[in-house]
């Protein structure tokens, strides 16, 4: 269904891709900006300059090798655990909602929430650092209390798209969630 460009809360460009697999199955993925070579080289040069300064002061060459190791391990850990490449939402009516985060190293972390647990998908406001941002979240049903909400699961936490993108995702999700209300309860 094509890709459209939006902006994240901090101004970086993100892309939303919508795919409809069937009448009750939709996939919405938001792609975050890639790791910039500029920032990578800036951080590496800063660390190595600091290490070289320490080396000049202390005359110990271990500082330089330690700096190289730190840079390498830090980059690997950053790519594997921190840098999110793409966040996607797979809504399968009558089965559930699946939230996937794919990291830059290829690792994928998935959570599947069954439809029986999902109360609703809403757009909420939050105070993040010095800004107030909008975010999309899934409200989970409290098993004991039909009116209550047991948990709030926030979506797209790394890419943080702005309201226009969130409205598109919200509309797509609600179309599928409405189907479960109109469908008969048991056959």
């Amino acid at each position: 269904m094509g890709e459209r460009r939006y902006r994240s809360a901090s101004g970086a460009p993100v892309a939303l891709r919508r795919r409809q697999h069937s009448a009750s199955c939709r996939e919405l993925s938001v792609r975050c900006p890639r790791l910039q070579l500029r920032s990578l080289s800036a951080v590496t040069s800063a660390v190595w300059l600091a290490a070289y300064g320490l080396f000049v002061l202390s005359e110990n060459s271990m500082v330089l090798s330690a700096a190289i190791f730190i840079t390498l391990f830090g980059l690997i850990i950053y790519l594997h655990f921190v840098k999110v490449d793409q966040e996607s939402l797979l809504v399968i009516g009558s089965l559930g909602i699946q939230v996937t985060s794919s990291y830059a190293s290829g690792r994928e972390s998935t959570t599947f929430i069954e439809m029986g647990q999902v109360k609703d998908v809403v757009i909420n406001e939050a105070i993040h650092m010095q800004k107030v941002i909008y975010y999309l979240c899934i409200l989970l049903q409290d098993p004991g209390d039909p009116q209550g909400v047991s948990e709030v699961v926030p979506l797209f936490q790394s890419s943080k798209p702005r309201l226009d993108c969130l409205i598109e995702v919200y509309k797509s999700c609600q179309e599928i969630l409405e189907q479960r209300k109109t469908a008969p309860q048991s056959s």
Partner: protein
Amino acid sequence: MVLKVFFPSCCSSAESGILIGRWISKQNSAVILAVVHFPFIPVQVKQYLSEVQRVTKVSVSVLGSWSNSKQEKEESLSEFLEDLGTIFSHEPWIQISKEGDSKFWSCSTLQKHSNNPKEEEIILVYYDQRKVMLSHLHSPLATATSTDHKADDASKLSAVFDTVAKSKILFMTDRYDDGPIKLTHWQSDGVEASIIMELMKQASVPACMLLTFLLSLISGICRSRVLKFWPLSFLWSKLSTCEQLGHRLQHLQFISSNKKAQNQTQLMRKANIFVSLLIDVALGILLMSWLYRKNRIGHLADTLIPVADHVAEELQDLLQWLMGAPAGLKMNRALDQVLGRFFLYHIHLWISYIHLMSPFIEMILWYVGLSACLGLTVALCILSDIIALLTFHIYCFYVYGARLYCLKIYGLSSLWRLFRGKKWNVLRQRVDSCSYDLDQLFIGTLLFTILLFLLPTTALYYLVFTLLRLLVVIVQGLIHLLVDLIDSLPLYSIILRLCRSYRLAAGVKFRVLEQQDGKPLRLLMQINPLSYSSVIQTYRLPTYSCYPKDSWTSLCKKLFLGELIYPWKHKGEKQD
């Protein structure tokens, strides 16, 4: 509503036949367990299914038909399959057909007594039967369904997992058996088994019986009256080695019991204890071989006495420093000398005692080192006990200093109240005003002044010895923390999560496969394994762990008032 069909991926290449499985009407989903091939007699199939239903308590029935035609679609076969729908009456009758090697199958349902003639959407979910059968679902909803009778709240996926797991008996017969029913499922190419596992299972029964007998002997000896006399029982309760040995004995008794494990949690616990014991003993033997090679234990014994001497000398220097003008503070000379000489004499006694023991140290240490073969945890506990014994004089000094300081503080607070004309009412647990006589006031004020001016000296001694005691306590605490870690780490669960991650499932994940218009939606259901932190949290072994008894504020309060502190509390100890 949408119809969901859970199809095992191993049956994708099976020949035509009928589908058997479980129909979950509340969720409008069908879990297909196997395919029964032609030729079959419907009466025998129904008989077989009722047998299976009786044994497994899972309502297995014929759900539909499966046709896998390598050539063009045969009209007669499709009519025959529709007719089967009338023999095995099931609402709805599911018909799945595959043409040639095409990935996209056509799926339709036959509803005879349906209210809405509208065509409902079908979702085809492929699942790996063997993995789903072996895995254990850990979602919080799955644990709640066992107590919850409301099917609406039931987790749909745990129903699917349960169905497959309980139907193990269905997977025992396969296509090559001579019975009337020919099935295709994940074991249809022959039942797998491992000779080593079977042999181990056979050998474990007599081994367990032998172990139980030995353990009952040992625990009988331990509980005998001889060891219950007062000095010995006091000693056993203070030594952490005995606690650790008792703990391990309990573990051994647990795993050698004859009762089979009831459920998954008990089985994992037994396996964890077994692996933990094995690794512990292996590490202990490794440590022992390292210690005894090149006579390292002899060297250790030789350095023990000089270290103890060195510690005693350092303490003596410290006391001389305190008796002088420590950190520029001016002490009360008389009290200082008294306290200093008292503690110096104590150290002198201690050094003589150590020198008395010195010829026997090497032999004692050699034999004690042998007990490291019982496990690394036992060796660490012995180390902690040796540290406690060697620093016993520091403990004594701390107790003397603390008692003196505590006495002084209580005296001061009581005399301060007298100074202001108040009194502590024990009956009402509060401070009341009181009129004192003149001579009472005079003596009270005099005593108050004396105690106040002697306070810095006592406080300094108390501070120094408390710091030393805290240092020893921290070292012992770290060793106990390490012992706890080795005791409680569920190694078997972690290795299982590493090698067979599908066995411990936190949930599932779906992957959308290639689609074609007009054909049902195809999804692949895979198992989402539990994260390592949840594995450790769920399967942690309970220990007699030591944890801080007091919070930081109450600890500081106790230190300030001079009350004796025992920062680590063991779970088995009585509250004092």
